[in-house]
């Protein structure tokens, strides 16, 4: 599990903390009634408040507060019943107010935890430091006009949650697992859609390295990384860079860096000396946010079963391995699909079909569980056809392939294509007799002790029956007939 980077002089450990910016699922922005539709024409999702027109005032969107509390509860975190919005002051054209409204010293959510499901079935806990609400900035478009920068304020004021982990992550893989798990929890909760390609989730990655047992060394922050893969890559290259700096006798400066996936490197953005002085202070336009305990309790009552609990239940009730259960619960739709298939059936068989054949087919056809050509009901029927002997395992695979292509019920396909398994011993014996007759030399060889030829006869019989013969019966009947 431990990830050590080999340096010229010994092994180094990466120390990573992630700040994830997750867009809150909400029809309106954090402090204005403006809409938040993704992909809308520039500057069409902008209210007077978002554009910071003189005299305009922010009004907190209660739905976004409920979403933040919900997320905090989903992260098993402390909900702070008093939190404060502050202004983070800096000038930039896509920041119309000249400040971002954010939470600073008193966030709405305190410490929590995320469990990572490791490949060996174990779990590892990554601490959550805090979650706070803030508004997004607009977008500066530098490539639309040769001489000017254009501003799109559609995103300005959109509600974000910044979820800050403790520096508990020790490898690129753990960072990937953390992000996927966090995304899974947010999607279960319905508080963030987790679409990194649409910018609904992005991460600032804090990386330092150290030798085993050392205290933390200086960290660098890689800003705005927008895919799980890039987060993992950026940790790897940044850790390597820092090790090289240390091993060549240098020191790492605390600074903000950018990850360039094309060149596979991080570059300095601004050093600490040029860091902004954001002059945070409580926003006098907004009162401190106070939550009543029964408000928090009411939200808690509406939480769905979350991935960790679902996983435990799948292990307990369906006898799945922790790893398999972990894979199935990543998203709610897969978990629900599995449960529909497994209900009243052999749950391990159901898990194998869902995780093996179905996920494979979805992968190769570029579909998702929501758009799956094979419904859970149909997959369940297929398993029933195996159980009642209508289909052999092999025939079932053929039927499944047809289901993927045609989307029909398996019973219908069995009838249409005549794929029903042959269990009539007389019919199978006739085929065996025919095969033995055609291969008299091989029969003689077998009978003189060349046992290995048994497989050859099975293959020939199955081929002759177009795969429909019941493999068990074929085995039994062949054995007795060959024995003479």
């Amino acid at each position: 599990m431990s990830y050590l980077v080999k340096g010229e002089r010994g092994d180094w450990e990466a120390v990573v903390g992630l700040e994830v910016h997750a867009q809150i699922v909400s029809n309106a922005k954090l402090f204005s009634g403006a809409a938040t539709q993704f992909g809308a024409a520039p500057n069409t999702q902008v209210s007077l408040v978002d554009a910071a027109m003189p005299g305009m005032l922010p009004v907190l969107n209660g739905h976004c507060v409920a979403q933040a509390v919900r997320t905090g509860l989903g992260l098993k975190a402390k909900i702070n019943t008093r939190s404060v919005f502050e202004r983070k002051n800096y000038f930039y054209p896509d920041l119309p107010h000249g400040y971002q409204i954010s939470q600073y010293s008193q966030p709405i959510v305190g410490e929590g935890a995320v469990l990572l499901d490791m490949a060996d079935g174990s779990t590892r806990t990554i601490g959550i430091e805090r979650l706070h609400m803030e508004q997004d900035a607009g977008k500066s478009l530098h490539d639309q006009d040769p001489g000017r920068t254009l501003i799109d304020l559609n995103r300005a004021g959109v509600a974000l949650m910044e979820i800050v982990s403790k520096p508990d992550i020790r490898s690129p893989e753990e960072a990937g697992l953390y992000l996927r798990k966090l995304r899974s929890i947010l999607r279960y909760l319905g508080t963030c859609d987790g679409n990194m390609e649409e910018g609904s989730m992005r991460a600032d990655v804090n990386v330092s390295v150290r030798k085993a047992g050392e205290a933390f060394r200086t960290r660098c922050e890689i800003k705005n990384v927008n895919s799980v893969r890039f987060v993992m890559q950026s940790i790897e290259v940044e850790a390597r860079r820092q090790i090289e700096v240390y091993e060549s006798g240098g020191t790492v400066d605390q600074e903000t860096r950018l990850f360039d996936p094309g060149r596979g490197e991080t570059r300095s953005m601004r050093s600490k000396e040029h860091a902004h002085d954001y002059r945070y202070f409580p926003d006098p336009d907004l009162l401190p946010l106070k939550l009543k305990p029964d408000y928090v309790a009411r939200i808690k009552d509406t939480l769905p079963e979350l991935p960790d609990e679902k996983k435990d239940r799948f292990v307990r009730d369906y006898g799945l391995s922790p790893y398999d259960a972990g894979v199935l619960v990543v998203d709610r739709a897969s978990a629900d699909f599995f449960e529909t298939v497994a209900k009243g059936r052999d749950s391990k068989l159901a898990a194998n079909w869902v995780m093996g054949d179905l996920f494979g087919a979805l992968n190769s056809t570029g579909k998702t569980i929501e758009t799956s050509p094979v419904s859970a009901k149909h997959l369940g029927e297929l398993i029933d056809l195996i159980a009642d002997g209508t289909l052999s395992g092999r025939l079932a695979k053929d039927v499944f392939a047809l289901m993927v292509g045609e989307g029909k019920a398996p019973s219908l396909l069995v009838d249409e294509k005549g794929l029903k398994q042959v269990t009539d011993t007389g019919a199978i014996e006739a085929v065996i007799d025919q095969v033995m007759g055609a291969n008299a030399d091989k029969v003689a060889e077998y009978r003189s002790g060349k046992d290995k030829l048994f497989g050859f006869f099975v293959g020939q019989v199955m081929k002759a029956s177009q795969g429909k013969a019941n493999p068990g019966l074929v085995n039994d009947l062949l054995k007795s007939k060959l024995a003479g």
Partner: protein
Amino acid sequence: MTALTGLSIAAVRDGLAERDFTALELAREHLRSIEKARHLNAFITETPEIALARAKESDARRAKGKALGPMDGVPIAIKDLFCTASVPTTAGSHILDGFTPTYESTVTAKLKAAGAVMLGKTNMDEFAMGSSNMTSYHGPVKNPWRPEGREKRDKDLVPGGSSGGSAAAVAAGLAPAAIGTDTGGSIRQPASFCGIVGMKPTYGRCSRWGIVAFASSLDQAGPFARSVEDTAILLAAMAGHDPKDSTSAPVAVPDFRAALKKSAKGLKVGIPKEYTMDGMPAAIDALWKRGVAWMQAQGAECREVSLPHTAYALPTYYIVAPAEASSNLARYDGVRFGLRVDEGGTLDEMYAATRGEGFGAEVRRRVLIGTYVLSAGYYDAYYLKAQKVRALIAEDFRKAFEAVDVLLTPTAPSAAFAIGDKMDDPVAMYLNDVFTVPASLAGLPAISLPAGLDADGLPLGLHLIAKPFDEETLFRAAAALEEACSFDAHPPGFGGSP
């Protein structure tokens, strides 16, 4: 003043009701007086078309028997800090050149809905930062009052600030009433300098939505008029909870005028001993003492109270207000509206050129102070400490109000001074607000009313402060004081009741 321009709101209401005159006649008469008094520079934008149109609408309503209330048909002047739809709004600044809001502030929208007739937008200190109206990009306002005595006669006086245009307009009879905003004294001090009544409601009583922000935790809209009753009528039309302003209080608006009728008998009036200042003009001290006697004559009990942190109020204010202002004014960056000075350089150069040219010296000074006190390494020593002191000041008042109902103090430490004075000494200028700032920091309602003249014949105000959301007691005490001091002086040349 003419027959129609000297009327109170109450008299206007009665005259309109009796069909003695129409709202249109009233508007025309006031527009004429505004035109004649342009040398005062009280207005930045006159809106005669709007005034005449609204007056006609008012008359039409009345003809149908559907008159709205006491403000229907009453002409008013609006401080140019309130955003008014399709009327340029400057905040007295160069940086808002060309800015015409598409929206109407909550307070002016309420007044419009009550039938009030907007005459125009009044001059003011830039972004409401000033006590003299000298910082306006549109030039200083002249106080209609002039000192008696030959040598002084040629000197024009300031009307106070920042709502100087509104105060001068009401004092000169250009409008029976006006609205302003008060952050540290910006209604009360000009009311005192111009010999009229000016009132700052409790923080949260009026919506701040659509008012160009100076210091958000202090800014509050309020009325100017020539009587306590008129300010009560006007405030009733301005006040009320607004869901668009998170700091506006969800409390009902009481019947302020009913409170005026209550006698001051048994009212407990506190005299804060810390408000006695070294070097305060004798006339002000004497007026304050007379104020005590007047209140006693009206049946009130006066007693000394202590507000121990008073001395720290002004320095606290000059940390908190600039801190908030430095952030509130960051949006004036030349990117989306108003002035842009772009000489083809970098983004930072555009910002610097726009803000350097667009903001006047006083605004630049306060933005710098505010930026400094919020900076890393100074925040705790200045901003955080100021917030703590602010809490102590509010606590002083809370304790004092356990023993008394209202506090009586002078409004300002001097009468109006000459245009140009104190401009080279910002601290001397800031001292204008020494008596008004503590109530602002505590968010308390306060009123200034004209109570006497100094040796030069210039008006001086007395100042009453009440508990949060107890405007009724404030008006009750103010009505009693107004009756007792029976101030009826008028600025020479604008004088006299009809």
